[in-house]
Structure formats: structure tokens, C-alpha cells
């Protein structure tokens, strides 16, 4: 509906969205104390899955190609990733739409998707700076977590988990927009969390599932969120496959952001006709 060009918005106005990221970071900073307390409850959460797998293995066996040590590393590192790819922009969008506050964004020369993506990145930045480091320290001290298999894998793991941030963000944006079509979105948000935890491979590695489930999950974007970076960290993806996995993540980013733009067009139309 707007007549501005892509280049106008994506390049010349980048500073605008950098500012949204900064202010979102600063908003999170206002709640830093509760996040620092949150570190402890988070570590307890990780410990539950950690000891669950330890009990499951009982003795030194290999289950579906994972040794106990690999599995413990997998689960600990998975939750470390989640500690920074998580954001709550779905809830922010839902609240803004339901309260009508969305009007205050519509009266400004901003691209709705880029604004929310910037805000989500602000959340993740806050988490990477203040929430994830203590979790990494405590996790590595308390639990038995292996180091990455090589420096190269470590670098690619960092790249891959940065892509995870964007994929999760793009999905969360779409989920938030769905609130425009449903009066109550609590159920949607709740099932989203469950589905993403399961299909991303955060709870159980994808290759533990039955074959039909595996093939389905490889056609969906979720395994790019957790399973992919964890496989890279553990060195279970080597050589050219590494670039295939990262390429697939990039492809999903493009697709999800594209879908996000289309969904917003539909939502915007609805808001503009029904008045929010």
C-alpha cells in the first residue's frame, strides 16, 4: 500500500531501525535485575533436561549415533542457544494490536516488519550481552559439556546460531501478526512454543524421530533454529554439507521474511478497514 521503494527503506533509513534496536535494548535493560534472577531458574531448567538424558543413558552406550557426552553437550548447548534466540515480539505485537497502540506505529514513517525485527534484535542483543554469558559460565562449570570439535566449527556454529536468531524472529513476527485475525491468541502462542521446541530439535535430536517425521521436519524451517547449529558444534556436519546447512538457513530467512511481508499486507488492510 505504501509507494516507497525498497532501496529507500532498506539502505538509506537503516539508522532508523538501528535506533529501534537500541531503544528495545534499553527497554530490556530496565528489567535487568529480573533477568539476572532469571539466570538461576533458567539453569535449573537446563539441569532437568541434562539429568533426564543422563538417567536415560544409565551406562556408557550410544543411542542413535549419540554418545552420552555428545548428548549432554547437545542439550546444554541447545538451551544456551535458546537463551539468546528467544524474543517476545509476538507478544508485543499482540498487545499493541489488541490495545490499539498499533495506531501509534502506523502514524510514523516506518516499515512495520523492519521495526519489529529491529526490536527483536534488541531483545537478542540484550540477552547475548547480559543473560547468556552467566548461563554459559554456570553451564560449563556445573555440567560436563564438550568444547567445539575445531575452531572452524566454532566459527560456523556462531554464524549458524546468528541465523537462528533471524529465523526465530521472522517466525515470531508472523505469529504475532496472527493476533489480528484471532481475538484470543494465547492458545496460538502456547502451541507455538511447544511446536518450536519439538520441531527445532531442542528437546530431542531430529534424527531420533521416525523417518517420516524426520523428512517432514527437514521440509520445515524449525530444524534450522536449533538442530542445525548444534550439529555443526558437535562436528556431525562436515565438509560441503556445512555450506548446504548454512545455505538452507539463509534460504529459510529469505522465505520467512518474505511471508512476513505478505502477512503484514493482509493485516494492514484489515486494520485500516476495521480500525484496529
Amino acid at each position: 500500500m505504501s509507494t516507497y521503494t525498497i532501496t529507500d527503506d532498506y539502505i538509506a533509513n537503516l539508522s532508523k531501525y538501528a535506533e529501534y534496536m537500541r531503544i528495545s535494548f534499553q527497554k530490556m535493560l530496565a528489567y535487568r535485575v529480573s533477568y539476572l534472577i532469571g539466570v538461576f531458574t533458567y539453569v535449573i531448567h537446563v539441569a532437568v533436561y541434562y539429568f533426564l538424558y543422563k538417567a536415560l543413558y544409565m551406562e556408557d552406550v550410544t543411542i542413535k549415533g549419540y554418545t552420552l557426552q555428545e548428548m549432554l553437550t547437545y542439550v546444554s548447548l541447545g538451551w544456551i542457544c535458546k537463551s539468546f534466540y528467544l524474543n517476545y515480539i509476538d507478544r508485543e505485537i499482540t498487545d499493541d494490536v489488541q490495545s490499539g497502540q498499533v495506531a501509534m506505529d502506523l502514524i510514523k514513517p516506518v516499515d512495520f516488519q523492519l521495526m519489529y525485527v529491529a526490536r527483536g534484535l534488541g531483545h537478542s542483543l540484550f540477552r547475548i550481552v547480559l543473560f547468556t554469558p552467566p548461563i554459559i559460565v554456570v553451564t560449563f562449570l556445573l555440567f560436563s559439556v564438550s568444547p567445539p570439535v575445531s575452531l572452524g566449527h566454532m566459527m560456523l556454529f556462531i554464524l549458524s546460531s546468528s541465523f537462528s536468531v533471524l529465523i526465530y524472529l521472522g517466525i515470531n513476527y508472523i505469529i504475532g501478526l496472527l493476533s489480528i485475525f484471532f481475538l484470543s491468541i494465547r492458545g496460538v502462542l502456547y502451541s507455538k512454543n511447544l511446536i518450536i521446541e519439538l520441531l527445532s530439535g531442542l528437546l530431542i535430536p531430529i534424527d531420533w524421530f521416525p523417518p517420516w517425521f524426520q523428512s517432514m521436519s527437514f521440509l520445515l524451517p524449525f530444524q534450522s533454529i536449533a538442530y542445525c547449529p548444534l550439529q555443526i558444534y558437535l562436528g556431525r556436519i562436515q565438509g560441503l554439507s556445512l555450506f548446504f546447512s548454512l545455505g538452507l538457513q539463509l534460504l529459510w530467512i529469505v522465505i520467512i521474511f518474505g511471508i512476513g511481508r505478505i502477512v503484514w499486507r493482509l493485516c494492514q488492510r484489515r486494520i485500516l478497514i476495521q480500525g484496529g
Partner: protein
Amino acid sequence: MIEVEHLTKVYRSFKRKEGLKGALVNLFYRDYESVQAVDDVSFTINPGELVGYIGPNGAGKSTTIKMLTGILIPTSGQVRVNGFIPYRERYEYTRHIGVVFGQRTQLWWDIPVQESFRLLRKVYQIDEKDFRDRLSMFIELLDLGPLLPIPVRKLSLGQRMRCDLVASMLHHPKVLFLDEPTIGLDVVGKLRIREFLAKINREFGVTMILTTHDLREIEELCQRLLIVDKGKIIYDGDIEGLRMKYTLDRRIVFQLNDNIDFDELQSACAFNGSVRSEVMDPLSLKVTFQRDSYSPADIIERVLKNAPVHDITIEEPSIEDIIGRIYSGQS
């Protein structure tokens, strides 16, 4: 320049049926009902005008403001503001307008006010120097200095509203839309905002549309008044014109020195049938007459000739009385 022609907005809302059976029916069959919020409204506002847009709750004021600001698509009719069709060119259009919704805020709740201002500088890509100059001027006008480092959630409603006004003015909009900007404020808070609006309208020629329920505000600020009721404009003109149009009755109260014979006085004055006079207490006489039948001087002259008067009060119905009467449909 704001041009509105035959503007109409019809909301279509989904009518829910009651009970379990109704809920099941709703799954398959939906019944809609239409509400006409704005009904064939036309007006033109010239640059620099400060126009009051008033009407009872549910008259369609906010709906009109939403269509003017581009966040609502009209069902039919035209809106043009400074050459833009608001909803169609929303992105470009919003650079040139400021909007204040009294019930909302565009400030970030948990962080200091100045951070929201900084964000707005980037959003509207305001030149650093212009930004500083404007901000320091607004800080002075609205006495905001001490508020800047305070998180918005700790501000009082009046303080927050002053900050919101500044937020809507930082990019120097040519048109400012104000939807109940003083709702819930105390007398001092309202006064401050009135003074600020009057000043920026006067000095910068900012065109303003103001909706409010505070008629004092209208009387002091607005050169022109648009009154809407049930989605239609029922009055467009200045306040004096409104008085002329809707208050045919005027009233003069005489304080008397002595008791008088009321009937004798009435026959002595020889008013025609349009004048009602009554004795309120033994020493005061109230004369109600129609604007177009007698002049006040005429009335006073006749009464003075026939009764011992020591004080005269001419009562003009307040703008509030007039509008109250219009709202309740007895004009």
C-alpha cells in the same frame, strides 16, 4: 490544506448469536450488521486554521480523525491533506503530520523520555541542529527540563501529555491532529496545553484539528467549530455564529429596590407575547425575550421607566448550555 468530501465510514461488525446453539450456528453462518460512523461529511480547512471538532461520544469524531491521519480507509468519499491521500500514501504522508491521541502515548513506557525523543529524531530523520533547537524551545515552553531523564511510567498524566505533545511536534509537522489531548487533565495541565497549542498555531502557522469535550478549550482556542452528531456535521462556523443560531432566548435580571406590583409593571412595559417576565424573589425580576424581537436596550429602557432598579445582569447562555442542548436534540 485539508479537503474532505462526502466522507463516509461504515463499520461492518459480526453479530454473535447467543447461547451454545448460537455459537454453533456462528461457526457456519455469520450475520453482519453495519454501523454508519461517519455519514457524508464534507469540509475544508485552510492552512493555519485551528478548528475544534466536537460532538457527543460516538458521534464519529475519532473515526474521522483516523481517516484524516491515514490509519483508516474511508468506505466512500475523499480525503486530501496537503495533496496526500492519507491511507494510500501513508508512509510518505506521515512525515508531514503530527498526531496526538489523548488516550495513548507514543513514548516508550519503561525508559526515560529523552530516549523516545532521540528515537523520533531518527524516525523522522530530523537534522541534529534543528532537533536541538526545537527541543530546547519546547522544553522551555512546557517546562520539561526536569522530566527528560525520568521513565515515562513515573510521569503524571499531565507531564506525560506535555511530553507526548512535544513528541508529535519534533519533526515540525504542517498539520497537527489532536484527539482529546487534555482528557483527564487538571485545570493547570489543561491551561498549559492550551497555551502551548495557541502559541505554535500562532507562531508557526501549524494547522490543527482538535477534538475535545472541554468547551472552555474550544472557546479559548478555536477560531472555527465543527459540530458532529450521529456521523453528520450539524454546525460549521465560529462560536459567535453558534450563539446567534442556537440561542434565540436572552435573559436580563433586574434587582429591585422595592416591592412592586408585578401585574402593573407588566402592563406598563407593554411587551408583546414573546417576552416572559417573572418575579424570582420579591426583589428580583427576570425577563426572558427573543433575540430577534427586542434589543436588550429596549427591554432595559422599558423596565427602568417603570420600576426602581439598582442592578442589571444580562445573562448570555454559556456555550456549554448551547452545545448541551444541541447534543440532547432540542435545538
